């Protein structure tokens, strides 16, 4: 294997201080995830120790069915979009990619609201509506994660298969698909987890057949105050999610271990008129799928029983001023963006350290894998845990503008790592070795090899984390906090009271969130593309 020197599994020869980077994510996880969760579980069993498990198992079973169905649909719709976006270069490609990403980073309540506006009169709440909304939200996960791999496949392999007599579909099934299987497995496992642990969508668009363990935890916690049962349910959920994560990780690690070096290839312009039609059709459909539900929000923000109006937008600055709703909706926007910034910095830093840790220490990979665990931690459990651990004396972070960004960071870090890890694992280590053999110091050699890619990847990761922060609601709703509410919280407050104004302003606020997110994602993509053209 002489031609693959250094691309193997051993940690790189690196300066000592870099080899300890894995400690940062490890401490982050223990302090901000381990402590709150153990605290809340311990307290829950202090309060009582009788619990029931049988009903939770049947809910877990039906939720798994719902999640499988949603994942299957997201894969079926997401794959052609991923294919088009990662094979062809065309005008509007960047915008299409940004638009596809928006549903994923919008608060689920906003999406649920949009779907109810759009389909509420056609479909009754239930499995179908939940599955449609889940598919919609998670398209981006498939398109982004699978697309990243797809972009690195040589399109000529498909042409070879075609010349050997394979129809476009056969060529996809026998050549492209097998090479995407690993990234598809990890993307699908993430989607499955999101649908399996879904809360907002299930509450607004579901019925009793679409309960999830997460909605059950919420019910046990805040309606029945049955803490031991809630704790057992939370543990069950974490166990099931960890199992799925391990399956997904095994599939993608197997792939990297096999040492298939993916090649970089540039995007090709469409060649034939039929390809051109296909690309246009897929890209347009994708944008329409994403935008139509959001347009119903735009309509809601500009319309009242009297006809078209701008009043809802102009009330963004004035609704509830002078009361303890603490500021106008405009204030909520400022708060949300402030928290998004702090979250971006925290999650970006932790993600960067985790990434360096993966490259430089055997324990780094283990830590990175464990850092995916928050995907399975119940938002209610996490929120209560953070409150118990850091929301009261002797350690009270509520006033410091940190508690909420910390919660958001815990939610965002797994996503950051999911984005960073595949890129780093496929980076060629020969650069670093070549640099150090030329007499550069170890630190310098490391930075020469990985500096540029780390920098770009971190900007993207921090941006993603910021988006997550903008839309996060689950844990936030459980956290005691002082100071201004975030936009998602404000939207929900507005929706919880009667009156046209409440609804119209909520739609206007949601539109602010939609536009802010599109801008943020487009900016991140622009940074990413700068890397590619270099």
């Amino acid at each position, binding site marked *: 294997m002489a031609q693959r020197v250094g691309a193997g599994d051993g940690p790189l020869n690196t300066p000592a201080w870099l080899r300890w980077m894995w400690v940062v994510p490890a401490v982050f996880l223990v302090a901000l995830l381990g402590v709150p969760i153990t605290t809340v579980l311990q307290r829950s069993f202090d309060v009582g120790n009788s619990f029931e498990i049988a009903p939770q198992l049947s809910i877990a079973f039906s939720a798994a069915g719902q999640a499988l169905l949603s994942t299957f649909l997201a894969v079926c719709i997401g794959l052609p979009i991923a294919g088009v976006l990662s094979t062809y270069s065309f005008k509007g490609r960047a915008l299409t990619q940004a638009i596809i990403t928006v549903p994923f980073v919008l608060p689920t309540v906003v999406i649920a609201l949009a779907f109810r506006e759009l389909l509420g009169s056609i479909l009754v709440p239930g499995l179908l509506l939940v599955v449609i909304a889940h598919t919609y939200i998670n398209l981006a996960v498939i398109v982004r994660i699978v697309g990243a791999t797809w972009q690195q496949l040589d399109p000529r392999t498909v042409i070879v298969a075609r*010349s050997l007599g394979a129809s476009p579909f056969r060529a996809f099934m026998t050549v492209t698909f097998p090479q995407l299987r690993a990234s598809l497995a990890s993307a699908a496992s993430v989607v499955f987890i999101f649908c399996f642990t879904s809360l907002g969508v299930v509450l607004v668009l579901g019925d009793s057949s679409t309960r999830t363990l997460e909605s059950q935890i919420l019910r046990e916690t805040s309606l029945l105050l049955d803490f031991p049962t809630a704790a057992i349910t939370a543990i069950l959920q974490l166990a099931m999610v960890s199992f799925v994560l391990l399956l997904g990780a095994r599939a993608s690690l197997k792939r990297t271990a096999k040492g298939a070096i993916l090649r970089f290839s540039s995007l090709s312009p469409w060649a034939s008129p039929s390809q051109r039609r296909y690309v246009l059709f897929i890209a347009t459909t994708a944008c329409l799928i994403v935008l139509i539900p959001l347009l119903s929000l735009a309509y809601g923000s500009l319309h009242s029983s009297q006809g078209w109006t701008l009043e809802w937008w102009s009330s963004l600055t004035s609704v509830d001023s002078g009361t303890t709703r603490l500021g106008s909706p405009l204030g909520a926007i400022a708060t949300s963006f402030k928290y998004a910034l702090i979250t971006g910095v925290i999650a970006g830093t932790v993600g960067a350290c985790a990434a360096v840790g993966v490259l430089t220490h055997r324990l780094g990979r283990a830590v990175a894998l464990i850092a995916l665990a928050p995907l399975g931690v119940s938002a209610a459990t996490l929120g209560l845990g953070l409150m118990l651990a850091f929301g009261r004396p002797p350690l009270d972070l509520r006033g410091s503008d940190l508690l909420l960004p910390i919660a958001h960071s815990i939610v965002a870090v797994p996503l950051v790592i999911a984005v960073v890890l595949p890129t780093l694992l496929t980076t060629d280590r020969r650069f670093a070795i070549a640099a150090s053999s030329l007499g550069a110091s170890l630190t310098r050699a490391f930075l020469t090899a990985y500096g540029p890619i780390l920098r770009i990847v971190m900007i993207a990761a921090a941006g993603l984390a910021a988006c997550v922060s903008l839309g996060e609601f689950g844990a936030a709703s459980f956290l005691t906090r002082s100071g201004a509410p975030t936009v998602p919280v404000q939207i929900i407050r507005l929706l919880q009271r009667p009156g046209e104004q409440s609804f119209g302003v909520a739609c206007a606020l949601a539109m602010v969130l939609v536009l802010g997110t599109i801008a943020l994602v487009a900016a991140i993509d622009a940074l990413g593309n700068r890397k590619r053209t270099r």
Partner: protein
Amino acid sequence: MNQGIELRELRVGYESTLLTVNMHLRDEITVILGPSGCGKSTLLSTILGSVPALGGSLVLNDVDITKAPIHERRIGMVFQDPLLFSHLTVIQNVMYGLRRAGVSKGLATQKAGELLEWVGLQGFQSRSVQELSGGQAQRVALARALAPEPAVLLLDEPYSALDSQLRTRLATEVAELLRSRNVVALHVTHDELEARSITSEIFRVDHASLSRVAT
């Protein structure tokens, strides 16, 4: 019956490099010689069907295939890189086209085995394609392209990734193999030495068209 492939006023390329080609290939190896970027790769892609023709027509055994999709043309291609399917073994790669043509698994295995022997790679059947050297991989790509017995084989700088000594040797060797099977082939290269070691039927790209090189 007009055997072989005919290029009638075939117009290929992009705005900057337009090429109009008239050519009739039958029972022989033809080489097109020209510097990179002159449009000869685009010509092959157009014949293969992955790039549409801008004008003219392409006739294979009396059938107009100008608009036919790639997989219905019965045209094989070997690229500059072997482009082997990395998730398949060596023999599975060679069997790929046979299986698509509906050949049974047993027969396909037998035929692919013979082809591998013919390109000098007996004993490599169940190897992973990642274990092959550059020259070996390109031979597998050749066997794979020939397995479904294409009407025409296109070779696009197939040896340019190899060192010059190996390049000339392999070029001669493969040309002999192709002749022994009466394969109609169009070979594109920028290397005059390689061209001459294959055939005397050499064309050169010249002012937006092809001209025969005098021998």
